[in-house]
């Protein structure tokens, strides 16, 4: 579903073949622990593990392209703001005339930037190796109601679909003489006539999709069988529990004085 609109990249790696819930557990627990872990060393460790997985999945080049675009500006901003202006700044790292850069700020910025890098890495690792439709399918096979599964699926697709629809409506309006190119105010003005038809078309599309689902038996009160079962294994099941269990364990460790 919506193959062209998702980030999914075809592949045969271990991660591509892993159960969607295993990948989901890995992503969520990596992000959580990266933010719970107290020091740069630990966060760096998680980052390295994620990078190894990204490389194994064969999506390193794609990740570097998107991650650089997101992380570079954030990291630079963090380094500047924290290094120059953090309230805990004491130790001078270097000074350029009256402008002083501090070690404490640098350390705080580096930790925050690394955590965000882990978040970005884990999220894209999941997105690149998992089809959007597989997420809701896997959840439904684990007992999530089909209605909720549909909600999850719709939520994942709503942005690309809406952008697509907005593009088509704007093409139609331009072809009929509405100026959408040129100066910023002119382009901003062109968004107003787009809004109402966009909302309206979305509602019409929703109604038609509901009917299409209904005639294909979506609302039938029957037990469903899955079109295919995701390959799972005892190892993956154990791994999922370990990954999920690691999060409360990390929180407990922090509370017990993990520094």
């Amino acid at each position, binding site marked *: 579903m919506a193959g062209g609109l998702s980030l999914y990249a075809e592949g045969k790696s271990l991660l591509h073949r892993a159960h969607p819930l295993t990948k989901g557990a890995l992503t969520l627990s990596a992000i959580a622990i990266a933010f719970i872990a107290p020091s740069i060393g630990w966060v760096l460790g998680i980052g390295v593990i994620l990078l190894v997985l990204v490389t194994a999945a064969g999506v390193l080049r794609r990740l570097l392209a998107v991650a650089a675009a997101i992380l570079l500006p954030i990291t630079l901003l963090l380094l500047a703001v924290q290094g120059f202006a953090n309230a805990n700044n004491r130790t001078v790292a270097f000074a350029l005339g009256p402008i002083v850069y501090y070690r404490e700020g640098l350390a705080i910025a580096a930790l925050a930037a690394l955590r965000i890098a882990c978040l970005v890495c884990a999220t894209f690792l999941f997105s690149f190796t998992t089809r959007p439709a597989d997420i809701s399918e896997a959840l439904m096979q684990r007992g999530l109601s089909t209605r909720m599964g549909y909600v999850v699926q719709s939520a994942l697709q709503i942005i690309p679909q809406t952008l697509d629809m907005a593009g088509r409506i704007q093409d139609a309006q331009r072809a*009929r003489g509405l100026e959408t190119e040129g100066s910023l105010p002119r382009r901003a003005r062109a968004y107003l006539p787009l809004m109402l038809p966009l909302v309206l*078309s979305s509602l019409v599309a929703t109604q038609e999709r509901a009917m299409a689902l209904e005639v294909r038996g979506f609302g039938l009160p029957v037990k469903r069988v899955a079109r295919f079962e995701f390959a799972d294994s005892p190892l993956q099941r154990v791994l999922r529990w370990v990954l999920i269990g690691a999060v409360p364990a990390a929180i407990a460790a922090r509370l017990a004085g993990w520094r």
Partner: protein
Amino acid sequence: MRFAYPGGVEVYPEPGLTLTLGSGVTALVGENGAGKTTLTKLLIGLLRPSAGSVTVAGLEVAKITVAAMARTVGYSFQNPDDQLFERTVQAEVSFGPRVLRRSAEGIERGVAWALRACGLEGKEDVHPHDLGLSERKWVAIASALAGEPAVVVLDEPTLGQDYPSRERLRSLVRELDDRGRSVLVVTHDMDFVGEACPTAVVLSHGRVRYSGPTSKAFADHSVIQEAGLEPPHVDSLARMLGLSECVSEADFLSAWRR
């Protein structure tokens, strides 16, 4: 002119497309994926050529905005649902002339004519989405005509239309021709092409395979087959009866009398 979609597939292969469309009514035909709709979008600037240029009525399309092109080119999309966005048929049809800042009198005249020519009189206050597909198609066509453009592009106007609708389309195209407009019709309906379009361009795999009078367009069967076309039914009938080539009922009758 060359064009490639993102992803790099060239629509018009080496050395690119060179085509001159005259005035009058021209049919643009060819198999699915031949590059017909791409060509019509290039004519109004919704797509821009990657090399070469497109000139419509003396305007170089790449140099002006799509909205400015709309003064000259009325464009009816293949799928009316890609095009309709207003709350009433009246508002939809008058959208073009309104945003083009036509005079009140010009808007009234253009809209009234478009509604009449498209059989939408009495449906002015209906929501376009409450109409059937065929009527939505007519609203889309009327919207393209209401600004009284010099060039009219109709992408698949015959799709899903019944016989009376096709007859109306035929008389509409003739009326546009009488008013001195240039009309380009993209269609798979060869009976319609034979009856309503004196000139035809056959596009196949991004290349022009034929450009000239419709009466000669069906002569070379290899071109017709390659372009996934079926000659007009009167032509098949004339061949069966051993008559000369015919593309319209009038041709057939005169050949039969001879």
